[in-house]
């Protein structure tokens, strides 16, 4: 009798968990191991703005209890970092020097907040929003009714901005090319959406008009805690500065693995990489689109969950193509507010 197959899922977000659940149901005899660098098990990232409303109990954000993983025989390995993958030998190398063999690997490691390289050195002066811990640190640093500067202003940042406005904060958005990411807004439409931001209560600063962002520094004594400097010499002040320049696939551990990569893991419409044993799902993969004649990313939890499910289907014998499930257009509501379909979470 053959040994049960070992499916390894890297990442425990929406795609990874959906994939693990599907793998378990379609291949009941298999071993399923899920590896995540996060200390927390699967939690609801879309709910993170609640931290700024005072919700600090991490248990309130957790989606599946520990029993779920036990009941489904999914071996969840938290706080575990994959450092490299040998696709030929089907082996994962973990940061603590353990190696792990897999029969199939499903990469759902997601994406991490993107920081333009020219601003990387100012990261210590900014507050991230990529994890529960980051959100707590940002909320702790923000005084009541304080002033938040959102650099870039992607849809994740604007979603947080809505909450911040709602709780009485002053919110400045420094708009540049990543504003509204991942939505593609044409040059003709852009002024209407910028105006909508103003109508919603955001203060808007155009980085291009000031020669782009030059630096983020600590504030002068007696003034706000942070200041954003522009290349024209002007500056703005706020209590915290948060970067929202979109996300970049979290795939450092796949470099050198022998699997094709451009910005994300390049996958066929069936979500298979260039290695037969390795599939990818979620924000980490760049999927070939026959319609667009290019590799492209798809975002939004509905898309990501569907990708996780499809990848697991295909890992276990199916060969179905990816079909997007979510509207990608940025909308203007009747009352002149911006609405992103990526803000809808259920």
């Amino acid at each position, binding site marked *: 009798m053959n040994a049960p197959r070992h499916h390894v899922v890297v990442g425990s977000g929406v795609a990874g968990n959906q994939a693990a659940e599907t793998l378990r149901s379609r291949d009941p005899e298999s071993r399923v191991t899920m590896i995540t660098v996060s200390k927390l098990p699967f939690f609801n990232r879309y709910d993170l703005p609640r931290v700024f409303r005072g919700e600090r109990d991490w248990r309130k954000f957790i989606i599946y209890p520990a029993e779920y993983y036990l009941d489904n025989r999914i071996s969840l390995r938290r706080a575990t970092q994959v*450092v*490299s993958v*040998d696709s030929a030998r089907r082996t994962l*190398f973990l940061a603590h*020097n353990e*190696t792990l063999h897999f029969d199939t690997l499903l990469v759902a490691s997601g994406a991490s907040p993107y920081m*333009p*390289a*020219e601003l*990387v*050195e100012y990261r210590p002066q900014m507050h991230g929003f990529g994890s529960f811990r980051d959100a707590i640190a940002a909320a702790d640093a923000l005084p009541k009714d304080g002033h938040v500067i959102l650099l870039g202003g992607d849809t994740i940042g604007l979603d947080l901005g809505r909450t911040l406005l709602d709780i009485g904060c002053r919110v400045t958005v420094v708009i540049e090319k990543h504003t509204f990411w991942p939505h593609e807004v044409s040059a003709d439409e852009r002024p209407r959406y910028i105006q909508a931001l103003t109508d919603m209560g955001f203060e808007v600063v155009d980085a291009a008009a000031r020669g*782009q962002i*030059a*630096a983020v520094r600590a504030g002068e004594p007696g003034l706000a805690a942070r200041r954003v400097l522009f*290349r024209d010499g002007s500056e703005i002040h706020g209590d915290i500065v948060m970067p929202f320049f979109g996300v970049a696939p979290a795939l450092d551990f796949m*470099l*050198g693995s022998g699997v*094709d*990569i*451009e*910005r994300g893991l*390049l996958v066929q419409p069936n979500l298979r990489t*260039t290695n037969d044993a390795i599939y990818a799902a979620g924000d980490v993969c760049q999927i*070939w689109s026959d319609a667009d*004649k*290019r*590799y492209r990313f798809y975002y939004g939890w509905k898309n990501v969950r569907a990708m996780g499910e499809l990848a697991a289907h295909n890992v276990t014998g199916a060969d179905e193509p990816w079909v997007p499930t979510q509207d990608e257009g940025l909308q203007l509501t009747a009352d002149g507010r911006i609405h992103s379909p990526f803000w809808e979470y259920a």
Partner: protein
Amino acid sequence: MSAVPAPRDLIVSPTGEAVAYSDDPRDVGWVVKNIPCQSACPAATNIPAYIRAIAEGRHGDAYEINRQANVLPGVLGRICSRQCEKACRHGWPGNGEPVAICNLKRSASDLKNSGHRITEELFAPTGKRIAIVGAGPAGVAAAHDLSVLGHDVTLFERESQPGGMLRYGIPAFRLPRDILEIELHNALRLGVELRVGEGVGKNTSFPVARLLRDYDAVLMSAGCMAPLPLPLNGEWKNRDPADTCPDVEHGLPFLMALHRDEKKTVRRRVAVVGAGFSALDCARVAARLGAQEVVIHIRTAEEYIPVTKEEIFEAKREGIRIRGLRTPVGIELDADGRLTGVRFVQNRLGGWREGGRRLAIPIPGSEFFEPCDTLLIAIGQKTVNDFLDVPVELDRWQNVRIGENGMTSVRGLFAAGDYVTGPTTVIEAIGRGRQGAAQIDAWLMGETRRRRLVRIESVAEPLRERAFDFIGRQEMPTAVPNERLRSRTLEVDLGLPAQPCQEESKRCYLCNLKYQIDVDRCIYCRACIEVAPRACIKLVESVDIEADGSCGKLREAKEWNKVGAIWIDNNECIRCGACFKVCPVKCISITRNEFVEVDQP
């Protein structure tokens, strides 16, 4: 350089340690296989030796060790393509990141005493005269080695100053000119006659035929200086847009003009096509010339382009963006003949080309347009031979063909460097220049006067500690992006200060150390296996013997009664010394095995 004892004859060094010299293929094979950085270096630099010297604070010695293989250590410490780091054992899976070898090389140059004395043992004058054409890295390296060997060397250079691509191709923010000047001067100071502004060949005062008459040998190291045309489709098929559009320029002439102090400008949005160091240099220069948006368009993806990760990161810090999976197929001009953008076709990744590069396969029907108003083409260079006034046999790529002795089809005319191979890297050009020098010397003198042996020296105790394995890679400090964009010459990399430099030097595994177990004295207590941090000590049934006689694959024993020996797998060994320290019967020995160049007796 002293005469060499017979191979394997043990002699006693001044410090009382046993030393042997060997040309046994097993010893040569061990060094080639087990010191991956040195084997990857085109100039075969003895990397573990110079890093050890840095760890001991002997920066001047480290500089000299470098200089034995590469006559421009301070230059290469800044701009090397770092093949050694790609091969470094510390970067193998599970071992962390490679040692910052190149940064250490630079540190040896930066941190040596200001009064450091260069030591070179010279051969007696031979009376032979050699002309070298082209004062780029290959020509300079060859000129240096030939002058050390006692020959009279004249170096002809078409430009007004020596250095070739180093001076005219690489921007000063990567390679400060004062560093280049000093090291070029040191390389050529042993009596090399430098004739700048002197072209060679047809329509010049120095036809090759004349050089062949006046000199005992001629070395062509004219480099690879003609830009490759960009193949386009449609109306631009077989036409070079750089000929007609003022906003389109080839990268190398652009950089060369800039470095001749000619005025160069770019417009607001700059597109660069190409994926090598020249493309990155063009983009970074454009950013310094005031471009608002600079995008490098590449055919494959960032992971597969032949530049270092550090260079890519620094370019991005300067606001430069890289866009992958695209091939230019045409350009668009407005009614005034000014550039409005480039038409690309989407690619997918294909297989691997010779030389380890990825193939890009255009996808039919996927054409798209990217607006830009300056286009710099930096997709490669080729050699030019139309200046030659003697009939020289060429290969299918129109490069000069040379024989095993480095000579062309014309007696006495040798060739080396990129002029023979097509465009490579500076360190490869230096390696090939040195090789050409050795070949000329052998041809002129009728014998090989220097040869490579393995020096084997007993080492009393491990030179590393296990704790060194947990030191993180020390990153190079750099200038603030906003400041560097204001200057075309402000050096970006600032150099490792002494303390991080020493920390980084400790990270080197010192792969030139060979750990061996004396099986006859081993009591098979397994203590070494217990303390080993990796599966590096193995109980084996047998060991395969390679064609050169060196040890190959280990056949591990699965049962006790099949154990033939206990063996240190030098491929897995990270030279931590834990086994040596724990052995109760001291049956583990350490030797330092390294290549040395010695005079023939």
